[in-house]
């Protein structure tokens, strides 16, 4: 069974890497977005392999179901999609390779070196530490309450920001009135006109040819 798991892990890992590389190298930006979505799927598969079902499903739900759609919307609403004339590699590409590699190495090497790879198997009968949805929920409410609340407020702020950005004052909306509304409007205007002080006599003769409709 272990060999099967290892083989599956390798397959998924290769798939994720290939998808990620394709994301940054294809010329067509929509294709790049689709490769990105495949890499999301790959990560979700990895989570399932680790028996973190909740996380795997949440990964698919959030990344594939929401984030990718957002990305696709953003792409499709932009103009220049013919990325063929963009050069893939800039002249100073070796700097772009060196700096992120150094940063990545700075982060990963200590982690790999100090991690205990051979975990002792858990004592028999004990449920796994945090894997099921119930445990995650309990953890959210106990140990990780603060990050939970901060994340919630962050999402709320984002939503309010979206509403503010997209909000259109109702007064600024122009629309065509129904006949009943026109009648009401006309009556109100007549009342307003009636309450105004007497206007000065107009020197210009009103022409009779033009229609008297407002």
């Amino acid at each position, binding site marked *: 069974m272990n060999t099967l798991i290892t083989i599956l892990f390798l397959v998924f890992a290769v798939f994720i890497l290939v998808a990620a590389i394709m994301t940054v190298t294809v010329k067509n930006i929509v294709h790049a977005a689709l490769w990105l979505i495949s890499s999301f799927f790959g990560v979700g598969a990895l989570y399932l392999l680790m028996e973190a079902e909740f996380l795997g499903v949440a990964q698919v739900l959030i990344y594939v179901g929401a984030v990718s759609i957002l990305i696709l919307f953003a792409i499709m609403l932009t103009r220049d999609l013919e990325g063929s004339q963009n050069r893939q590699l800039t002249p100073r590409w070796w700097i772009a390779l060196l700096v992120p590699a150094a940063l990545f190495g700075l982060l990963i090497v200590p982690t790999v070196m100090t991690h205990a790879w051979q975990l002792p198997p858990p004592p028999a009968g004990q449920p796994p530490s945090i894997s099921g949805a119930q445990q995650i929920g309990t953890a959210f409410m106990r140990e990780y309450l603060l990050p939970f609340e901060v994340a919630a407020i962050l999402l709320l702020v984002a939503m309010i920001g979206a509403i503010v950005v997209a909000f259109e004052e109702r007064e600024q909306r122009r629309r065509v009135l129904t*006949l*009943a509304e026109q*009648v009401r409007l*006309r*009556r109100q205007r007549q009342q307003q006109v009636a309450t105004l002080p007497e206007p000065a006599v107009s020197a210009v003769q009103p022409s009779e040819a033009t*229609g*008297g*409709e407002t």
Partner: protein
Amino acid sequence: MITETEPETTETQTTRGKVYVIDRGRPKLRAGQGLLTGLDVVFRHFRDALTRKLEKPSQQTGVFTVQYPEERLKLPEAFRNFPILLYDDETGHELCTSCFQCQRICPPQVIHMTQARDPATGKAVPAVAEFLIEYDACMSCGLCAEVCPFDAIKMDHEFEFSTDVHGGLTINKAGLNRPISYYEKIAPTFWAEVKDGAMKKLQGNMKRRPDLIGVAPQMIDTIKAKRAEVAVAQAPAPAPSAPDSAPTDKAARLAAIRAKAAAKEADAQPAPSDDSAPTDKAARLAAIRAANAARKDEAANVAQTSDTTSDDKAARLAAIRAANAAKKAAAEGAPASASAAPPAHTAPTSDTPPAASSTPDDKAARLAAIRAANAAKKAAAEGAPASASAAPAAHAAPTSDTPPAASSTPDDKAARLAAIRAANAAKKAAAQKQDGNDDQ
């Protein structure tokens, strides 16, 4: 919570006219009541569509579909598609007289016809020889049916004419003919309105159509057979003195009765002299008929075929005409011209010279005599040699040993022509004789 208020109506006069605003006052809380009402309506339609069909529009629900071609809607009477020609069921005569009115009025000009002609005289007959309608160009306007004075062309209800035969939609008279019963079935009230006038006109037209001209092709054979039957049934009428040998024909029996009565009268009265023409028309007619029948009997062994039908009919017709003329002449007190006038007289007045030439009002009698003489001459020319007397064609029957020519198809026209010629010859002979008498 869910209340209905009275709808309030406000009325305003604007520059463009009055504006009415009706505020129906929607219920206070809209919780989907309208939606549920809509669902209920649709469900009722669904339920009724499973159980019944929609017959009339006032019944709102039910299956509306008519599964053509298994089910068909009943077409209204006034539905018109393409025209058809009508013919009478009993007599087989087509109502069309080829008056060309429909051809004239047809907007796309798809009607074509030719008038029937009398093959003997070449004159036009009120019947149609051939009739053609191009259905594919017909626009179903119905003007032809509207304008026909004889109600011969009517609009049919048939519309399933699809064909893959090129030219299959050009229909000739045989294809256009329908019996009147068919039209009566599809448009009863329309036919009832025009039936009397149409049949009356048909009767008039039938009289002017010789022989079988104007009979629908569908009915020609049956009509011919019927006429043969009629003739055969009428031929064996009994002799006036001989007892009736079971005559089946009503006319023959009637003739027999009349002959008996005439014979009785003849016996009672002295034998009429040459100038005392019997005033009893009926008796004369009966006598004529009886004589004919007797002669027919004698010639039965000679001529038994029905070929003599037409000749006989012609002769009878001539005899009737002569008798009529004689009656007219007798009514005016004409002298022995009467004897010459009706050449069908069997009374021994045949050898008296016709003095028709002296009386001017004997023109009709003369004409009849001429006709009869011609007929006799014709018959004599075709058959055996005719006698010197102004024997009519009917007389020629017994004197001729040979049966009338096989060309008995000569219709009454030929017979009349022969009778006319014979009368001419007789007149000439009579005139010569009179001259001779005068001379002497």
